[in-house]
């Protein structure tokens, strides 16, 4: 657990608000500018919404090609690309981790585009036995099959980087794994899930897993004491995710991110701005992104935008694929009314 219950939420709100007040958008001047990438007169940001009914290899390959082409993907040619899945734990009964079949399709796609190296990297949060989890998740077999490196970020070589938030306290200096610090392209591949402490977990929250457990503990408890929204924002303002692919083919609802139940949404959400991808995925889940503490905070510090008007949706409408996920009762207030999703 982190800071507990109601007190935790009050603490989060207090800590988050005060920290934010002292953290103007200009503070991100030295950090990746993730909100000012208007390239034409169209929407500020672009997100691809790709119906994908199952994990069949041909279905996945086609969906990734479509989503990649209709968003603003990074140029991966000649680059070292790190794929960061979500693997807080593994269960044969519950869809906790990003599906390896999706990861494999993405690895093949990036390879076809000419990436110099593809690395699959994760720093598990609860169970630090990565050998066991990599095996049970199917990631080890995938890495062997495709000849890519599989890295346990919890025990990687580390390098400190200065946090983008000049008022940061616990994360004033963020200790990053060398694999992340030297990546030329980072692709976050989260599972579409509810979360007992954060409401929902998607691409931005997935980046908790890049911080090494050997420095931050398991379950990355320093980040919890720092406040979950603030930690998410400080990490994502400092480490840029170049592209996100949300695995919403089968997600998790209820008491996520571990003990929830499977929920099929049949969709991939893809894009270069993690906040906009998350906001879109949240709307698909029937969640108003502006009510999610960390998404609202990320918007305010210009990690991107969650405003519907700023996000161009390619591939269909949110309403067509909207699948209301059962929320943890503690986060019932996140539910969007019908129409808000658009």
């Amino acid at each position, binding site marked *: 657990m982190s800071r507990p219950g109601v007190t935790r939420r009050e603490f989060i709100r207090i800590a988050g608000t005060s920290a934010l007040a002292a953290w103007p958008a200009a503070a991100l001047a030295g950090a990746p500018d993730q909100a000012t990438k208007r390239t034409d007169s169209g929407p500020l940001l672009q997100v691809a919404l790709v119906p994908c009914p199952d994990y069949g290899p041909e279905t996945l390959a086609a969906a990734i090609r479509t989503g990649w082409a209709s968003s603003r993907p990074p140029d991966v040619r000649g680059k070292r690309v790190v794929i960061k899945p979500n693997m807080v734990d593994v269960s044969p009964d519950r869809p906790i981790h990003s599906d390896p079949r999706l990861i494999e399709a993405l690895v093949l796609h990036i390879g076809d585009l000419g990436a110099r190296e593809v690395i699959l990297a994760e720093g598990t949060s609860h169970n630090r036995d990565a050998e066991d989890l990599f095996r049970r998740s199917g990631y080890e077999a995938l890495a062997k099959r495709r000849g890519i490196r599989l890295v346990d970020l919890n025990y990687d070589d*580390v390098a400190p980087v200065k946090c983008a938030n000049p008022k940061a306290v616990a994360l004033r200096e963020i200790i990053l794994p060398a694999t992340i610090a030297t990546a030329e392209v980072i692709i976050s591949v989260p599972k579409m899930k509810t979360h007992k402490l954060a409401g929902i977990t998607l691409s931005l929250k997935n980046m908790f897993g890049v911080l090494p457990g*050997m420095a931050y503990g398991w379950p990355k408890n320093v980040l919890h004491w720092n406040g979950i929204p603030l930690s998410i924002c400080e990490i994502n303002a400092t480490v840029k995710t170049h592209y996100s692919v949300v695995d919403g083919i089968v997600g998790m609802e209820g008491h996520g991110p571990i003990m929830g139940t499977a929920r099929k949404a049949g969709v991939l959400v893809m894009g270069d701005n993690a906040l906009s991808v998350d906001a879109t995925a949240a709307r698909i889940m029937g969640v108003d992104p502006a009510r999610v503490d960390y998404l609202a905070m990320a918007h305010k510090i210009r990690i991107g935008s969650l405003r519907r008007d700023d996000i161009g949706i390619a591939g269909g409408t949110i309403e067509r694929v909207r699948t209301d996920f059962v929320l943890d009762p503690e986060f019932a207030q996140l539910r969007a009314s019908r129409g808000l999703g658009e």
Partner: protein
Amino acid sequence: MTNPRLTEALAFIKARQNPDGGWGYGPGRASLVEPTGFCALALHSGGDAAVACRGRAFLETCQQGSGAVGINSKDAGGSWMSYAALLAFHGMGATDAEDRLKRWVLGFEDASGRFSKEEISIVATRYRYDASIPGWSWTPRTTAWVEPTALFIIALRKSGVPASERRIQSGIDLILDRRVPSGGWNFGNPYSKSFELEASTMSTALALAALGAADVPEGRPAVRAGLRFLADALGGDISTASLAWALMALKSFTSGAARVAGVTARLARLQADDGSYRGNMFETALAYLVLSDAPILGPVQGGKR
């Protein structure tokens, strides 16, 4: 030493010592306290004192004025990895460094004193454990968890601190309090609201090894249930480190003895052609120490409650 291939493990470790005297988790990687502590202990145990002493010297450069040891020499705050330094200092006779580190470990502050009564009550309702019990956390002043508490209990007991010591007793209480009702331990949350969370092999093995080191009777229901969980887990696929810690746990209890030979053989079979375990310096040293019955990871002698 009954397994001649164990000398190959030592050779693997010795050949990959960094110029600063330490070892990283992988060959050629930056030196860190946990792999260095175990590699130095393995070489010391194997009779290669000179190389081991260079490892000990690296650990001493990681010790702060407070006695704390972090993950490396640049980490001033102290961390969970200091358990490995304590084992190494004790095993290699670095008395002054050991005493200073021991004092720091015994004074280690987790978050138990930071929780309000309301927070403790909420934790008791939601996660069904007692957050007021002091244990050890991965980093100072954060929440205590099962594995760091177990690792520090093991290190303190091996370095001669009696099981009756207040912090060790509190750590035992924490481990017993955090047990998963159906058997075993996970990282430290038995429940999440109404959901019982699953135990894991590594957490269970470490918890049992700590309870054994602290002379907790194996008749205790939590110990019996933990040993049952471990026996079931050993029936399936299991990682190298978990297998090594499980072997240490089994050696700690009389009822585990029947499984020791089988687990020993199973762990020995995981050794690679180059002498290592998965090419991992820490796992290679850990496997060497438990397979060679090195006293530093063997049953605690004396000082029992």
